[in-house]
């Protein structure tokens, strides 16, 4: 029996402390999944806490038809998408307000110069270019890339997490690869040499 499923059985029998095993095993992939999807390091931990909280509350209803990580990643993806919608609403409200007080131009300047907090996390210039290119992908392609490239998930697993067909996963990855080639080709050859 899968190790995760054994722990979940213990949890369902009342051993709530066993959930700690699942957090310790999955906290890094979940935090990174969120970080790479949102591009925001500061919020990724808070959102990851929320993911685990939802998993903890819903684990009694988990029916082992899919693997635990698929279930956990689905929660993560849904929260990411919801957080993005919320963020967009906040940005629109903020922009409307800032247009009135004139601080919009100053913020746009700051954005074009990059976020110093994020830079310290990203490290190199290449890393920043990669981050920017990934963040510019449409959300459905971005999630497919993150799961496939960074989380090393198969087409079948990605299809299950995203609730789409395998052929849809493939075509999202093809489109994403083409976009990334266009955006990163120059820096890739600079770095690796022709």
């Amino acid at each position: 029996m899968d190790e995760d499923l054994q722990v979940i059985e213990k949890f369902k029998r009342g051993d709530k402390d066993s959930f700690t095993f699942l957090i310790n095993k999955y906290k890094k992939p979940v935090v990174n999944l969120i970080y790479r999807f949102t591009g925001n390091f500061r919020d990724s931990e808070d959102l990851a806490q929320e993911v685990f909280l939802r998993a903890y509350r819903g684990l009694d209803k988990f029916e082992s038809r899919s693997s635990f990580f698929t279930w956990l990643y689905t929660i993560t993806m849904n929260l990411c998408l919801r957080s993005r919608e919320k963020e967009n609403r906040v940005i629109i409200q903020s922009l409307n307000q800032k247009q009135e007080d004139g601080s919009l131009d100053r913020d746009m300047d700051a954005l074009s110069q990059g976020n110093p907090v994020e830079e310290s996390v990203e490290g190199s210039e290449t890393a920043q270019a990669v981050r920017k290119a990934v963040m510019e992908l449409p959300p459905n392609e971005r999630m497919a890339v993150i799961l496939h490239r960074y989380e090393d998930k198969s087409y079948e697993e990605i299809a299950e997490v995203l609730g789409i067909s395998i052929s849809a996963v493939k075509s999202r990855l093809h489109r994403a690869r083409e976009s990334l080639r266009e955006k990163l080709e120059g820096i890739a050859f600079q770095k690796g040499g022709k």
Partner: protein
Amino acid sequence: MNCNEVKKIMAEFVQGDLPEKESGDVQVHIDSCPECRYEYEAFIKTWDILDEWKAVEPSPDFTARFLTKVMAQEKPARTEHNSIVERLGIIFRNMFTFRVPAWSAALLIAAAIFLAQYFNPPQVVERVVYREVPVVETADYTIPSNPVVAGGSTGDYLPSPYTVLKNTQKPEATEEEEIFEQQNKKTDGTIERIDLKDFI
């Protein structure tokens, strides 16, 4: 297979999603075409370079923070707002916090007025009058029939100060009564008392 055909399916090729035959054809073309070979390498290198965006480590207290949060939420605390008064307070506060439309507020106020009217209607003061009742001449007093409430209906309740009414006004005697009086008139002018039992 020409360059355009190869470029169209290059992403599938580098990802290993092409059927074996087609994949072999692309490989043959790439080996002989520098332009398409460059294209192929661009796909490979840009995919490889994604590794530059390093993973982050969750903070060391991530698990501890989660457990603290869970413990705090699992306390068998009652929900904060149990009483009706508290719930009404929340609704009232929310009205202002979430800017409930004016018509909702108006509706609420109208409902409150209606309920107040329903449970505590304005008091109507009824004037009680008593119909004068004909008095049998021989009786000292009489008890009126039920008092008449203004408007014509008859009430059952007789307020204490009016429990017994004495009617002092003598009604006009009928013809039979006058004959009766003359027949029973005493010498001193009084009329003989009649006991009802004589008639039973």
